[in-house]
Every structure is written in structure tokens, then in C-alpha cells.
């Protein structure tokens, strides 16, 4: 143990370094001072480096700084030992310190070379600054884009709201217009019903006057003429009654109309045994068509009642059919003695009016009439579908 201590600090027989310099005060001072300054500097530099490394925790390869710290500290220590060995022959410990310094130096040198490319590859501050600048520019650009997006989003939302508002407005307008139209339609319907009602009432008033007039007459021809007039008035009134009951106030089914009309005319049979049958297909007709048709049926059924049954017995048929070619056929037939209405017209001026009415109404309907006399009399009136519509 004492031999290791002696080897380290006082190998036997060796003299301090100052002895070699013959203790010349100038040289001793020069060496000691120079080594002291170097040692101070060499202790100061690694302290500065260590401080730098500890403050910059983000540094890549900071361990190399610590290697430098160790290496420079070691160097500093060798210079300190040079001062010591001027006066004390501690060449053992000086050598060991030099060995440590050598190992640290060679390790640092050896590690540094291969590290150079990697250190070079590290971005420099100016490069980082430039990158930073580019990044800032991009961030700025991104922010501008975001702002533009946000602006256009706001505009889209605004125009959306505007659109919705307009749709709502338009819908409200349409609903209001619809309501106005419905109201107008309702008023029209009300007005039409009122008109039909008044027409009917007036016809009823005329009928009352005719009835009262008839009671005061004694002439049977005059009474008959007024009864014919009442039948014609009834046909007109019945058309309006049917129109009032129809859902569209424009058209109605002709079939129940023909039945009711014909049955009313049969009131004129007196006590005779005459039957009536009405067979009509359903057909929608309007006022303009129903009036001439109703008057025609009135005249034809009345004629049969007046002329066909001198013996007071028989049968009247009213039929409305659709033929294969689409035309419609109105048939009024009886099983009485065949009569010629034109012959009757020459004898009876009232019958003459009926004949004229039949001719006129047939032409108004753009129809044709054929009269057959076989087992009674059959009047066949043909009209086209378009005329009925």
C-alpha cells in the first residue's frame, strides 16, 4: 500500500521537474504560471459547455458535449499536474491522469469523425428559421383559407336562410291563393245553387199562374194547351232540380231524370190503363243538352198518350241506348194504333206546335229522328256522344 502511494506520489530516486530546470526562478514561474492559466481555462471551458448543454435540453447528440467536457477537464488536470510535478515528483499519478486524458481524447476523436455527417445533416438555425418562416406562411395561408371557408359557409348559411324564407313566403302566398280560390269556388257554387233555385222558383210561380188560369177556363182545348205548357215547364224545372243536386253543378245523370220526367207526363192518362217503362243507360249531360232532350221526351210521350190509345189501354217505353258505333239512341215507343203526327198536326193546331218543337229540338241537338210505325209508333232519335258531353 505504501509502495503504491510512493509510486503514485513519490517514486524513489526521482527528482521534481523544477530540479531539471535547475530551480531557475524565471523558468519555474513561466511554466507554473502558463500551466495554471491553461488549467484555469481548461476548467472554465467545460463548465461553460456543461452549463450550455444543461440549458439546451433539446440538443441532438448532447452526450458528445459531455464527452468534450470530460476530455477538456482531463486536459486541464494534466496541466495542473505539470505544476505539481515542478515541486513534487508525483509522476505516477501524472501518468495515470495522462492515460485517462489519452483515452478520453482518442475516444472523443474517434467518435467525432463518424458523427460529422450526422451533425452536418442537422438543420442549422437559419435553415430552421427558413422552415419556420415557410411554416408560418403556410399557417397564415391555412388561416386565410379557413377564414374564406368560414366566410363562404356564412354566406351559404345566409343564402340558405334566405331561400328558406322565400320558400316559406311563396308557400304562404300559394296557401293564401289556394284559400282565395277555394273561397271563390265556394262562392261560385253558392251563387250557381242560388241561380238554379231562383229559376226553379220562378218556374213554380209560372206553373202556379198557369194552374190558376186553367181552373178559370171552360174550353177543353184551352185547358189542354195550358196542361201542355205545364208539362214543358216541368221539364225545365226538373233539369234545374237535377243540376242543383249534382256535385259539380254542371252535369247530371240523365237516367233518373228521364224516369221522373216520363212519370210526371203519365199523370195525364186520366183513368186509362196505360203503363210506362223507362230503361236508360247512365249518361252525364249538361244544361244545354238536357233541356232539349227533356222537352223532346215530353213531346213524344205526350203524343203517344194523346194519339196512340183510342181504346184507353197500352204501354209506353222510353229507352236510351248506346249503339255499337258509339252513337246514342233515344227511343220513345208505344204499342197503340200507329198514328201519323203530321196528319194529326193538320187536324189539331196544338199538335202542330208539338211537331214544330220536335223538329226544332232535334236539329238543336244535331240529332236525327226516324219514326217507325209497326205494332204501334216508335220515334228513334240518334245523337253523337260529343253532343252529349
Amino acid at each position, binding site marked *: 500500500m505504501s509502495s503504491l502511494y510512493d509510486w503514485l506520489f513519490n517514486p524513489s530516486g526521482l527528482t521534481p521537474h523544477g530540479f531539471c530546470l535547475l530551480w531557475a526562478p524565471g523558468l519555474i514561474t513561466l511554466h507554473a504560471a502558463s500551466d495554471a492559466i491553461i488549467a484555469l481555462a481548461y476548467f472554465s471551458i467545460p463548465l461553460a459547455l456543461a452549463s450550455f448543454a444543461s440549458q439546451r435540453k433539446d440538443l441532438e447528440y448532447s452526450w458528445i458535449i459531455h464527452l468534450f467536457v470530460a476530455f477538456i477537464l482531463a486536459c486541464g488536470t494534466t496541466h495542473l499536474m505539470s505544476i505539481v510535478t515542478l515541486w513534487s515528483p508525483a509522476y505516477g499519478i501524472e501518468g495515470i491522469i495522462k492515460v485517462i486524458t489519452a483515452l478520453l481524447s482518442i475516444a472523443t476523436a474517434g467518435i467525432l469523425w463518424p458523427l460529422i455527417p450526422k451533425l452536418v445533416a442537422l438543420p442549422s438555425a437559419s435553415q430552421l428559421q427558413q422552415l419556420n418562416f415557410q411554416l408560418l406562411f403556410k399557417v397564415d395561408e391555412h388561416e386565410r383559407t379557413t377564414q374564406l371557408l368560414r366566410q363562404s359557409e356564412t354566406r351559404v348559411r345566409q343564402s340558405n336562410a334566405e331561400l328558406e324564407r322565400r320558400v316559406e313566403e311563396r308557400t304562404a302566398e300559394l296557401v293564401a291563393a289556394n284559400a282565395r280560390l277555394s273561397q271563390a269556388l265556394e262562392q261560385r257554387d253558392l251563387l250557381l*245553387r242560388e241561380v238554379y*233555385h231562383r229559376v*226553379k*222558383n220562378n*218556374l*213554380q*210561380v209560372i*206553373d*202556379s*199562374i198557369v*194552374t*190558376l188560369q186553367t*181552373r178559370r177556363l171552360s174550353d177543353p182545348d184551352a185547358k189542354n194547351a195550358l196542361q201542355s205548357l205545364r208539362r214543358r*215547364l*216541368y221539364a225545365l*224545372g*226538373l233539369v234545374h*232540380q237535377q243540376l*242543383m*243536386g249534382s256535385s259539380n253543378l254542371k252535369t247530371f245523370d240523365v237516367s233518373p231524370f228521364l224516369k221522373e220526367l216520363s*212519370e*210526371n207526363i*203519365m*199523370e195525364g192518362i186520366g183513368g186509362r190503363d196505360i203503363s210506362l217503362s223507362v230503361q236508360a243507360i247512365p249518361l252525364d249531360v249538361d244544361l244545354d243538352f238536357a233541356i232539349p232532350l227533356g222537352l223532346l221526351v215530353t213531346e213524344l210521350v205526350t203524343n203517344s198518350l194523346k194519339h196512340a190509345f183510342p181504346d184507353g189501354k197500352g204501354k209506353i217505353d222510353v229507352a236510351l241506348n248506346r249503339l255499337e258505333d258509339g252513337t246514342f239512341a233515344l227511343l220513345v215507343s208505344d204499342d197503340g194504333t200507329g198514328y201519323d203526327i203530321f196528319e194529326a198536326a193538320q187536324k189539331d193546331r196544338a199538335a202542330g206546335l208539338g211537331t214544330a218543337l220536335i223538329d226544332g229540338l232535334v236539329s238543336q241537338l244535331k240529332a236525327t229522328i226516324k219514326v217507325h210505325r209497326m205494332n204501334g209508333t216508335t220515334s228513334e232519335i240518334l245523337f253523337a256522344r260529343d253532343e252529349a258531353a
Partner: protein
Amino acid sequence: MSDLKKSVLIVEDEYLISLGLTAQIEDMGLKVCATADSADAAVIQAETHRPAIILMDVRLRGDRDGVDAAQAIFHTVGSKIIFITGSREQRTIDRIDQDHPFAVLFKPISDKQLHAAVNDAMRAAGHA
């Protein structure tokens, strides 16, 4: 119903139609006890004359119509009521139907329809 007289009350605000109906009823050999042109007059006449049959127009002078008059008469007098209406509107028909009508005739009324309805009503009232 036997306390009701074999006569007809005509309720119609159109004078000429009322006159025509009177003639038609008289031609049937029946008596017209009175005519009225408003619901109120109809109620008074019905209570005064107690007719077996009332021919009742729906549209009348004044605020109340034939349906209102019929309602009152049905409960106090009990006459058979034959409505005569120019309207085929469902609203009117629904109102009439609530009102115990004996018959409903739509203008124009044929002699035959009137005769049949009046004869049926007389039978129902016990005046064959």
C-alpha cells in the same frame, strides 16, 4: 190525432205559389184552412186551426225558416208536415230530416207527387 181537422195549412212566402198550391189542394176536394208566409205566422195558424196536414216551404220570410216552424208545430200540434223545398243541398236535407218530416217534395212538384203525399198524410192522420 183525431183532434186534428181534415184541412191543410199552406206555408209559402211566394204568394203565387201559395195560390197555386191552394188551387191544387182544393181541386183534390180538400179544404185549405189558412196560408202563412213566415215561420211565426205558420206556428200561430197551426195552433189556431190544428190542420191534419201542413205544406211547408223551407225558405220563408223572416229569420226563422220552415224547419224551425215545423220543429215547434211538431211538438205542440202534431200535424203531418210535408216539406216543399227548392233546395237539394245536403245541409238543408239534413236539417229537414231531423225534423220528423212526413214527406219531402222537391220543386218543381208535379200534381201526382203532391196528390200522393197529401193522400198518404191524410190517411196517416186518420182522415181516410
